[in-house]
């Protein structure tokens, strides 16, 4: 566990913060935050020639959450729990957002409905598309070219 903790700033430098966090042991938010601050420093002093400071922006995003989650006054523990920090499971998302069928019907006007796919129905994990601390993506677009805003 300690070893992974130590290499975290390197992961941040590579822009892989979200993935870097996976598998971390129990850590307080403040500890994460300290690592993030350290990484910011590292970005400024150790960035490779020609590298844009974009990674600093993604670092900053690590402790920030989306406006609607801010409005709901969510804390780290609300999603990540008090134990091991890591990827948030779909059932945690659904504990606020309703059943996967309800989520699907809320976007039924969209063509195609991203929450009720021909291939997977309403059963895809939220985090395949929606990222809290990084830019969201459209998982369908591995194969398709759907023009959709993913919050």
């Amino acid at each position: 566990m300690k070893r992974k903790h130590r290499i975290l700033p390197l992961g941040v430098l590579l822009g892989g913060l979200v993935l870097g966090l996976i598998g971390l042991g129990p850590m307080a938010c403040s500890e994460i935050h300290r690592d993030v601050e350290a990484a910011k420093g590292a970005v400024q002093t150790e960035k490779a020639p020609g590298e844009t400071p974009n990674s600093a922006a993604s670092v900053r995003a690590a402790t920030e959450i989306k406006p609607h989650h801010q409005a709901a006054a969510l804390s780290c523990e609300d999603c990540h729990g008090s134990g091991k920090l890591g990827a948030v499971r779909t059932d945690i998302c659904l504990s606020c957002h309703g059943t996967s069928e309800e989520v699907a019907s809320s976007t039924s006007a969209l063509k195609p409905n991203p929450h009720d796919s021909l291939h997977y129905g309403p059963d895809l994990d939220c985090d395949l598309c929606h990222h809290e601390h990084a830019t969201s993506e459209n998982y369908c677009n591995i194969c398709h070219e759907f023009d959709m805003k993913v919050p």
Partner: protein
Amino acid sequence: MTDQNDSKNGLTRRGFLKTTGGATVMAGMAAGGLLLGSKRLEAAEIPQKWDEAVDVVIIGSGFAGLAAAIEAKAAGASVVILEKMPTPGGNSVINGGLIAAAGTPLQAKEKVDDSPELMYQDMVKAGLGLNHSELVMTMTRQSAEAVEWTVKLGVQYKDRNTHLGGHSVPRSYYTTNSSGAGIVRPQLAKVKELGVPLVTRCFLDRILQDGDGRIKGVRVYEDYRFPNAGSGKIKTIRANRAVILATGGFAQDLNFRMLQDPKVDEKVESTNQPGATAEGLIEALRLHANPIQLSWIQLGPWACPDEKGMGIGYIFAISAAFPYGIMVARETGQRFVNELADRKVRADAIIKTGAFAVGIADQEGVFRTAKLDTMLERGVVKKFDTLDALAEAFNIQKDGLKKTVAEYNAYLKAGEDKAFGKPFQKDCKPIVSPPFYGMNLWPKAHHTMGGIQINTEAQVIDLYQKPIPGLYAAGEISGGVHGAVRLGSNAITDCIVFGRIAGKNAAKDRPWA
């Protein structure tokens, strides 16, 4: 297995990845498995204490893995399905949803005279005789039953046979949603109903083989993040009875596929999902499973270069342009191949022309084409009032095209394609009715016919022609069924037939003590 061994393997893999860099992660995985795993696991590496135990461990959640799971569970075994990707269904869930069978109720209804023997002949002809005949016979004899089995699961098919290239008669069932998902999702529902756990993001690291050759379980990475080798948490699962490999093909494994056929390089796109890589196959090879014809990699001739991956344009090609229209070369405006020849003949012919070919059909020709509106909307298929306008838009030699269409219509009237011997459909009409539809065609890597050797009981056979005790395989990971060329719609049949056999046999394999 000791902790030391564990971390050593893990670190070596990570170290290997670091040196190769992110861009070659997938290649790294393939080569890593091959280079680092060359030694046979010692008896000592079989763990004293397993994290979990189950009768049958199935690797892969496509058609074959799910069919195996349903049968194994029905036979009374406890089963777990492991899937390395974050989604279930593998490549099957994005498959085109066509399954071939001989002697079906649909054929009876349409008075199509067919038999397992005729299907066998079609397969061996296209397969250039490289097919392992006993496997082909097993597949064709059980094909109609395979379709019936899916119908019992609740799969819905269109009420007509589809006639695909290389088949001498119409014999393909087509799911109503034109996707393999039409089969995978009922399979998944059944698996759920039976209470079989399906664990996604679970990567097969090692098949654990004892000193006496018996397969005893697997070592996996749980919470694995594709394609990061070594991500996740190591765990061992005891397989009381057997392990079934249903890990699919390797059309997306650039490094591995180029080792087999250097022509299928980075310029060749693939229709497959990103997880269609070779790690499972390589792990079987490490256990001395016998490789069969790995270099026969199929390119799909119906693929459209104007969209990503499998896309939907292929539906226009297989439902309209090929059976009811024509395919021409831009430079000459002429046809250059039988549009219903097998996939290899057609793909090779397109590549030989040196430029995107164009598939063409008229209004009469698109009457059975699903999703045509979507294809037009996305600009994959384009629509024109005249053939001249079509020729202009696709930069086809105009007079050549006119002459070609006139000739083709005359052949159709005479009932014989004197140019290329294409079998005309009974309901084929001359190409005269506007609007006219056109689509670019350029082959993409689609299916890997080669794989590990299995026998008709779906047991994996080793280099010395002995079954590896406790190891089964089904579907695209196996080799020999299709020979040099797989006919369209034969993959699902292969997966369902041998998946079911593997599941039944694994469930009755004697548990090891």
